[in-house]
């Protein structure tokens, strides 16, 4: 829920990093925390277990600065990936403005990826939200590992696309981040849209800011 506060002249937007356990959601936030200039970031909060598994969420506020008189801020959240923490996951999605799904590229984690993606759709629906109509990007993490699945395999499984029913949107749309690839295209007489995706190695920061930049721009567009 983007909140425009005319009294304090602030705009706050909520971004949630979702995905299977140990996929790298917290690592994304930690890298962002490490690299963003001190003046632009708030305190990072991690509600984690003793073994550093996320128990409830990680939270990192990032300030964009004052734009046209409004202090603009993104609230970055992660959810706990482990299956049995679904109650916490659902709570964090409340009021979300944009979602980053962090998938684990390892072939062995395909089932966990699929389960988490399905869980994301279900939990969004329970909040009355349609993931396909909100700012949503996918990050395939751990691309450096030898057992990483080919991108096409991940795309087919996790980002097969959804039908575009609005006639005004039934036209080819290229992916601004990937020349030659399409976000909206016609296939067998049907218009299909896919979420933008990014390859990442979050531990060393590869792809982390590309992902964040993409989702935050999509969120800002919904304000204009």
């Amino acid at each position, binding site marked *: *829920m*983007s*909140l*425009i*506060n*005319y*009294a*304090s002249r602030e*705009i*706050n*937007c*909520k971004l949630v990093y979702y995905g299977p356990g140990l996929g790298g959601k917290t690592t994304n936030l930690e890298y962002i925390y490490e690299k*963003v*200039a001190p003046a*632009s970031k*708030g*305190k990072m*909060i991690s*509600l984690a277990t003793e073994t550093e598994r996320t128990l*409830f*969420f990680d*939270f990192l*506020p*990032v300030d*964009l*600065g004052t*734009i*046209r008189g*409004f202090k*603009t*801020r993104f*609230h970055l*959240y992660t959810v706990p990936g482990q299956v049995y923490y679904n*109650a*916490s996951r659902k*709570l*964090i999605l*409340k*009021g*979300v*403005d*944009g979602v980053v799904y962090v998938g684990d590229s390892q072939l062995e984690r395909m089932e966990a990826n699929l389960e988490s993606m399905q869980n994301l759709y279900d939990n969004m629906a329970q*909040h*009355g*939200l349609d993931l396909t*109509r*909100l*700012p949503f990007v996918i990050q395939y993490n751990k691309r450096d590992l030898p057992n990483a699945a080919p991108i096409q395999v991940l795309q087919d499984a996790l980002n097969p696309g959804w039908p575009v029913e609005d006639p005004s949107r039934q036209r080819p749309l290229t992916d601004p981040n990937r020349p030659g690839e399409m976000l909206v295209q016609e296939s067998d007489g049907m218009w299909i849209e896919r979420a933008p995706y990014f390859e990442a190695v979050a531990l060393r920061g590869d792809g982390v*800011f590309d992902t*964040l*930049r993409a989702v*935050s*721009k*999509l969120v*800002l*567009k*919904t*304000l*204009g």
Partner: protein
Amino acid sequence: MTRGSSSWSFREEDASRIGSMLNGLLREANARTALLVDRTGQMLATVGEEPRFDPVAFASLTAADFSANDQLARMLGENEFGALFHQGERDSLYLADIARRVILVVIFDNRTTLGLVKLRVRTTVERLAALFTEMFAREAAGEGVTRMDTGFVGEAEDEIDKLFGS
């Protein structure tokens, strides 16, 4: 692409009405600070002594605290816990739900009592609930969803490129 679930805006006149209600509450309850946090974890207003903590982090944790307790309430067969109390050695917190979308947090110390704070919060919650219900109705009627001017998005995108690298 659509905006998040229930975007809303907070006008200056709303803030001044809320400010005067909260100031009245602090005076009558002899409490130190009153904060309003929305259920998604965003700070709406702070009145009274300037908090010594990071208000952004505080708001996020308050919303999580309330949400987790909501779930506990349901496990007991309750609809919700309308209020929560956290007792410290020096400072304590009293949190109360407003219209299921906003949380009122009162910070107080041993200059007052929990009983007095509870009593005063009850009447303030009723008045705030009426005000927020009016604000939500305004928003439901489509008056609340405001668009930022086109220049805003462009400038914000430039800032994103600067901050997050392009």
